[in-house]
């Protein structure tokens, strides 16, 4: 990389950071509501190219979405099966031809990259006429993916200058990106709600058990302490 690119990249990151601070830090409130909102946004914008192969559509029903709604709002690709993993609308062979690499399965992406990375990546695109797609990214330089969210989030130059405002206000837009990240976090860790529901009961039962075990131990060990003070110990056989 030349010095100029370094300078512009650094400036871009600083500008992005400043913009992020000016708007709002990402709100990963993470609940079943934000996951379902993210799933709707994902189905609308991302599942044209990306699969979430490990997550079956019917998993969303467990989060409170009706089967009819899932079929209408999430299962957009033709031939999607309610009981099978989330598939992209686009043919993988076509996508590979158009983008150079197949768009990755996003099932485990948040576990692999972290939710902050995904959020930063999705909000760090800039207009770069030198790239075949016209887009480049500060977080993942020369990414094959174009900024498909630009119509909503706005188009920025590499130095962070707004070239064309998006349809959404920056606050709403960043909230929606955070919801997509929430959905992907759920997709990479689908046991999370179950774990957090059962967790307190398991820990509570174990704490109770440990408490009783401690009382039992204290009762038995009175003998040992008494023997240390010269009193007659209750041996294992007499006891």
């Amino acid at each position, binding site marked *: 990389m030349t010095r100029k690119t370094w300078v512009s990249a650094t400036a871009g990151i600083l500008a992005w950071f400043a913009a992020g601070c000016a708007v709002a830090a990402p709100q990963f409130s993470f609940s079943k509501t934000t996951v379902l909102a993210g799933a709707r946004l994902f189905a609308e914008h991302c599942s044209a190219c990306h699969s979430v192969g490990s997550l079956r559509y019917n998993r969303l029903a467990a989060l409170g979405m009706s089967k009819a709604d899932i079929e209408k709002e999430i299962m957009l690709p033709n031939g999607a099966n309610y009981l099978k993993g989330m598939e992209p609308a686009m043919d993988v062979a076509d996508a590979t031809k158009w983008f150079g690499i197949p768009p990755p399965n996003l099932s*485990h992406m948040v576990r692999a990259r972290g939710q902050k990375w995904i959020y930063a990546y999705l909000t760090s695109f800039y207009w770069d006429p030198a790239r075949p797609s016209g887009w480049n990214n500060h977080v993942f330089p020369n990414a094959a993916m174009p900024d498909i969210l630009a119509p909503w989030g706005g188009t920025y130059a590499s130095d962070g200058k707004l070239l064309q405002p998006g349809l959404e206000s920056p606050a709403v837009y960043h909230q929606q990106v955070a919801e997509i990240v929430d959905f992907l976090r759920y997709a990479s860790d689908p046991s999370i709600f179950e774990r957090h529901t059962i967790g307190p009961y398991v820990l509570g039962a174990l704490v109770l058990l440990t408490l009783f075990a401690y009382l039992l131990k204290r009762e038995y060990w009175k003998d040992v302490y008494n023997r240390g003070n010269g009193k007659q110990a209750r041996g294992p056989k007499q006891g």
Partner: protein
Amino acid sequence: MSRFGDWLNERFPAREMMREHMTEYYAPKNFNIFYYTGSLLLLMIFLQLISGFLLMAHYVPTSQGAFDSVQGIMYDTRWGWLIRYMHVDGVSLIFILLYLHIGRGMLYGSYRKPRELLWIIGYLIYIMMMGEAFFGYVLPFGNLSYWAGQVITSIIHAVPFVGPGLTTLARGGPGVGSATLQRFLALHAVLWFLIIAALIVMHVLALHQVGSNNPDGIEIKQHKGPDGHPVDGIPFHPYYTVKDIFGVGVWLIIFAAIIFYAPTMHGVFLERTTFFRANPMVALPDVTPPWYLAPYYAMLRAIPNKYFGIALMGLAISLPFFLPWLDRNPVRSARYRPVYRMMIIIMAITFFTLAWVGEQPPLPKYFIIERLGAVIYVGFYLLLPIISSIEPTRKVPERVQS
């Protein structure tokens, strides 16, 4: 005893074994928190057997099917996530316990005569555990599994003459693939497990032959009461069984908290790169082992020559075998050996610093830490015969301090 009990004991020595290993096995009464680790290790290894058995019922040992079958356990199998997190997080917790258990032995001189063989069997279990962990690590066939499998099996390549042949034998072919997964599964679930189980039985039998050491490092058998039992000893059952049940409770709270609230432990217990499918076309920028093997990897990297690096790693792993003969001081416990205690503390800090640095990318700024760590690690064992023969010691009490 009941008639059934009599019938049984005429044919199987249940009562006798109970007496020998539980009710009439006298353990020192001054055990501290470090002495929970033995029973907790037994518990954790038993849990690994149960969870491993259930995982294996769903696992497909092929390069095409392994990653998806593991994800099937995580996404589609009822309670599958619980079983897998138990198995994965259990490994890191076992190594935490192993390091506390080994560190305890070093601190209180539990490797000294007459416990040399006890120490050697125990250290063998640790080495076998490293192999067991490595085989298991490759099985889910994420990208880290694939590259770790490639890198570790290529270490065998350095063996003179037969190295290349042995590497092919270990992998079951020129590269890591289905044949590797199948033989690693067989090693992980059958051969290695049986050897470890047999060594654990030997370790417990050897312990009960010589008796437990204690934080004061003195023999309780030297002071026996009129009944012939050590005055400072208490029967393992019921005193230590009830104490260990309490320890198990505390430990299970920690274990459950990790499983339910931080199952990947922020990428330390379950690394980020294991969530990418194995891909021979996408090399990882740096293949680092899990944290519990990282100290040896750091020492391997400390020397920029493959053969000398492997030699240093082999030396580092095998030096603790000689500890019983390297320590020449008549006093066992570090409680009464201030210099030795300081050496142990420095050694512990060095070991975990090496674990940290082994996880970092191979940058020149870390080389100095790796080399310094390797020098301290090896230096500990090489200087011990000299320091232990001249170090000052405090007066050792006659009886254990409670």
